């Protein structure tokens, strides 16, 4: 159900995300001080190459990681396998990627 490639991809995406999650937690703690607004979020992120790269990479890694994780759960709980399982995996990956990149573009591209 997980070949070596998917297994390693899951670990690799996890390792990439470990520092990103720590950064995201720090940003959240910092940003929610005194409430949040659209203008405040955009003021921080819009036009920033750094935030674009940070959250762009985060979205790529989490799309792979979330899709492979869901694949394991769906296989173990519902017994799905073969092409149906692959379709679900890559469908989830594509869905997360599209939604995630839309969000990153919305808050970083001026």
């Amino acid at each position: 159900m997980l070949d070596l490639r998917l297994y390693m991809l899951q670990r690799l995406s996890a390792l990439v995300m470990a520092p990103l999650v720590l950064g995201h937690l720090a940003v959240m703690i910092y940003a929610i001080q005194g409430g949040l607004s659209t203008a405040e979020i955009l003021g921080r992120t819009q036009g920033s190459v750094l935030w674009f790269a940070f959250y762009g990479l985060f979205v790529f890694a989490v799309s792979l990681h979330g899709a492979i994780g869901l694949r394991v759960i769906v296989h173990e709980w519902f017994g799905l396998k073969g092409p149906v399982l692959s379709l679900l995996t890559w469908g989830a990956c594509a869905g997360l990627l599209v939604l995630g990149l839309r969000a990153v573009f919305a808050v970083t591209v001026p």
Partner: protein
Amino acid sequence: MKAPARSHPLWLAFVLHRLSGLALALFLPAHFWLLSQALTNPSRLDGFLAFAEMPLVKLAEFGLVFLLAVHMFGGLRLMALEFLPWSDRQKTLAAGAVGVAFLISTTFFLKAV
């Protein structure tokens, strides 16, 4: 006879990792969609951010942040078990130490910002 896996206390670590991962994966589409409204419909995003000031929503957010943190540390523990040639007990202690250090430094950070 070998004891069933579920009687082992670390079975809870597995369940916590799985359920937190599942919840985060299900939360992400809503999270992404709402952020994309910053461009297409800023008033809707602002409306939601105002709604998020309610104490009950803050509590839910605390839950989400907890899920993210617990999934990350659970994952680091898992990878330490798989990739590092330590004994299981050493890895559990190391994961615990990182968790406690994170808790203390975050508490400091919360007060400092």
